């Protein structure tokens, strides 16, 4: 690929990314009243999409081979358990991540 072609390719990726981020704001500008259905979506989608994000992080885990996702499962259990118990965001994240790192580096 020539430099010009590389620049075009990168620009297209930038354009596509910007498009997905701006479309809702262009379709529903603040001046106009947003349709009730879209308002409803705006109120419920965040809750649903956070679930999607958690699953997205685990998309490369294979349950039937390798370490069967056991480090991920234990790591998430540590994060969730600590967070439900103590409610300290950084503590839950740090403890879960360190647990996961030790598991994949020394055990699995």
């Amino acid at each position, binding site marked *: *690929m020539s430099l010009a072609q*590389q620049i*075009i*390719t*990168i620009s*297209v*990726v*930038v*354009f*596509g*990314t*910007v*498009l*997905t*981020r*701006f479309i*809702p*704001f262009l379709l*529903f500008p*603040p001046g106009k009243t947003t349709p009730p*259905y*879209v308002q*409803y*979506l*705006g109120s*419920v*989608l*965040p*809750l*649903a*999409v*956070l*679930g*999607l*994000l*958690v*699953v*997205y*992080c685990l*998309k*490369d885990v294979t349950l039937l081979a390798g370490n069967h996702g056991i*480090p*991920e499962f234990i*790591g*998430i259990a540590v*994060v*969730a358990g600590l*967070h*439900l118990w103590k409610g300290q*965001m*950084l503590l*839950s*994240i740090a403890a*879960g*991540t360190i647990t*996961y*790192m030790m*598991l*994949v*580096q020394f055990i699995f």
Partner: protein
Amino acid sequence: MNKREMLAKAFFAAFPHTTPILAGFLFLGIAYGMYMQSLGFSAIYPIVMSIIIFAGSMEFLAATLLLGAFNPFHALFLTLMVNARHLFYGISMLEKYKNTGKKKSYLIFGMCDESFSINYSANIPRNVDKGWFMTFVTLLNHCYWALGAAIGGIFGSLISFNTEGLEFVMTALFVVIFIEQWRKEKKHLIALIGLTASVISLILFGGSGFILPAMIAILAAVTAVRKPQEQKEAAA
């Protein structure tokens, strides 16, 4: 309060929320820079791409695009597919990003997974300017990512300590935010829809193609429960 104090207040309120991202993005950014270096790209590529694309998974994919045959339509299609989830973020942030003035374009430009989830879920103190708080969250995340990519691209070959598994910090962040939201809401139907629809479509479609089917399933399910949900709210 003058403008400088107001900015400082917003910055120091925003920074602690971004510390998990500092760890995660520096690490992932370094990994990205090293990856680009291993493919034979000079450091300028990861630096520029991390700043102007600012969408992690898409940047890794963009590297493979650059190595393949020139096909801008394929590049556009792939970008739209991978980043379609941003549509959901945008719809969710229509209200929160209102009245942020000139900062709004930047807030939308920098709306990566992490900036979205922090800006959506953070309890911003009343005496802190919301627009600037969200701008600093976005800007700090942007800086961490670009800094990581620069370090990885320039010094990648010198880094040798064992960081295997550090990427889990992002998973941990999303789990924590999910739990925080779960606790805030009385009804858990929607959160369960998000989880179930995603898990089912991951099983059916596999890791590389599950996002779009999951989004469609989520849309269909939340639309289906709209009436009963709203009637319950009206009755409550």
